[in-house]
């Protein structure tokens, strides 16, 4: 009886497997056929397009931004994966003051020494909240960690050689924006906007004591995930930056660059749309020659705090009603803060 049932099941499994194989073969074959057809038709046209100077320049700038960004991205994800795997999150909650208003600046400053790309900081902030850290403090950390950690600041100083004031302005403006947004949450934030994550995320820096082997696995998995995720968005950003540089005629940019206010707002919007990872965004900002230093600062302050991929990540982790309000408020605070810092330092 038992044997028969197992046998029947294995036969059913076999049939299912065979059907699946056929479906895969048909779908895959059709896809290959379609790709081959399209490629043979479009190939010569694409080759012609590639040969135009504009397309060649697009490809060069596109690959250049990616090539330049990869080592920094990897360095950042190495450190953030190490922290996610080896530093228990409860260390942070012990270090923080009890009063949220005091915990906000401490958590914001803690972001300075805890490198991580913005994609990694969202799950970390979620796990901090689950560990009883005040949401405002966790959010200040979420904003400051990707914006002002050493990797990002070093990348900024390399992208802006001989301009240490740009690094300082970025540090201060980002820290100020993170702390002010945290305080705004203490004053106006409502817990019902926040859908606290219930399940534990594996790469979320939970950092429980585990066997050394499982920790190394967590490290490797975190590194792989963070690099692939951020790398994909780096490609998007590079493509957008290259397109922006090639398609938009200089004269149009001049309209914006002539007006300091418009150029700040334009780059602050661009930072949201381009979604460049914080470890690489300084290089994109440096390539936007022709914009005022303050506008480029706004690009680098807004980028790690508000962009399309972050809004998506936050929606997934904390819920939509939170993500929309939080991103809008953060954008305004970040722009204001970078204008003030730019006016003071640049």
């Amino acid at each position: 009886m038992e044997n028969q049932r197992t046998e029947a099941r294995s036969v059913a499994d076999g049939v299912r497997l065979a059907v699946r194989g056929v479906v895969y073969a048909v779908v895959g074959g059709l896809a290959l056929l379609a790709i081959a057809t399209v490629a043979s038709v479009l190939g010569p046209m694409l080759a012609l397009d590639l040969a135009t100077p504009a397309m060649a320049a697009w490809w060069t700038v596109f690959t250049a931004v990616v090539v330049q960004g990869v080592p920094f991205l990897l360095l950042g994800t190495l450190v953030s994966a190490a922290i996610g795997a080896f530093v228990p999150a409860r260390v942070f909650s012990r270090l923080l003051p009890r009063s949220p208003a005091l915990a906000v600046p401490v958590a914001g400053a803690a972001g300075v020494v805890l490198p991580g790309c913005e994609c990694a900081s969202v799950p970390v902030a979620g796990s901090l909240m689950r560990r009883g850290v005040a949401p405002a403090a966790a959010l200040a950390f979420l904003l400051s960690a990707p914006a002002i950690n050493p990797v990002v600041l070093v990348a900024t100083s390399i992208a802006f050689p001989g301009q240490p004031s740009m690094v300082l302005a970025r540090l201060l403006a980002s820290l100020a924006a993170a702390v002010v947004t945290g305080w705004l949450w203490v004053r106006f934030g409502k817990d019902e906007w926040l859908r606290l994550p219930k399940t534990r995320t594996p790469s979320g820096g939970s950092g429980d004591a585990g066997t050394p082997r499982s920790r190394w696995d967590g490290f490797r998995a975190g590194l792989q995930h963070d690099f692939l995720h951020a790398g994909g968005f780096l490609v998007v950003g590079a493509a957008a930056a290259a397109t922006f540089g090639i398609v938009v005629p200089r004269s149009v940019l001049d309209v914006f660059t002539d007006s300091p206010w418009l150029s700040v707002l334009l780059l602050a919007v661009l930072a949201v749309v381009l979604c460049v990872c914080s470890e690489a965004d300084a290089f994109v900002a440096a390539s936007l020659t022709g914009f005022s230093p303050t506008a480029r600062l706004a690009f680098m302050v807004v980028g790690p705090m508000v962009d399309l991929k972050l809004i998506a990540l936050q929606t997934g982790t904390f819920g939509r009603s939170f993500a929309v309000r939080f991103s809008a408020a953060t954008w305004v605070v970040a722009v204001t803060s970078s204008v003030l810092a730019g006016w003071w330092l640049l």
Partner: protein
Amino acid sequence: MVAPVRRYGPAAVLLLSGAAILRISLFSELYLRYVQPGLRPYLIASGVLLVLLGAVSGGRTARGDAHDATDTHDHHTSHGPRVAWLLTVPALALLLFPPPALGSYSADREAAQYAAQGVGTFPELPAGDPVDLTLGEFTSRAIYDSERSLKGRTVRMTGFVTREENEGEDSTWYLTRLLVSCCAADAAPYKIEVRGADAPPEDAWVTVTGTWHPEGGLGSEEAWPPVLDAASVKRVAEPRNPYEKR
């Protein structure tokens, strides 16, 4: 068909990216078309790390360790973020047809660099006849050197050709080199007007030997772009590093 692609996707993307980085940094000097020379060790280290990571990831998948990929967000498949596939675009481009160095198209779009700002004295020119200079150094000295150290010296510089069609019959051409401080995205040109020689085709790499032709007052608008009276123009191959560093 689809399942293995999904399962081995992360490993494949990591291996491809690592191979692409190593191809341009370790196995050739193509990286100089995109970034500055100082980045090479970091590129090689990144390439090696990516290949290792990809190999380990692939090995684990093959051993059936399917659930080791982290799954943190809704839009991810269980085998790594889907957006990562985009990394294959630059990786394949670098592996199959590495994009060329930027040339006259980009030089024409960006405003030329003045290099040094402000009139002052410069260190003595190195000995040698002709003396080899970068376009940046020539431009700075031609426009801002109060001691006019270029006077009476024969100089030799290498760059590519850009042209400017004028109203009249004579078109001017420039010896041009792009300045890259970080990566090709921030390229900005140096331009030196060449007189006394017929213009080679646009984008051709040339080595020009000649003497400085002073024009306008120091630091004035008329002094720019600097002018070179060419004695000889020789076609050369594209240099190892197509850009000048700040």
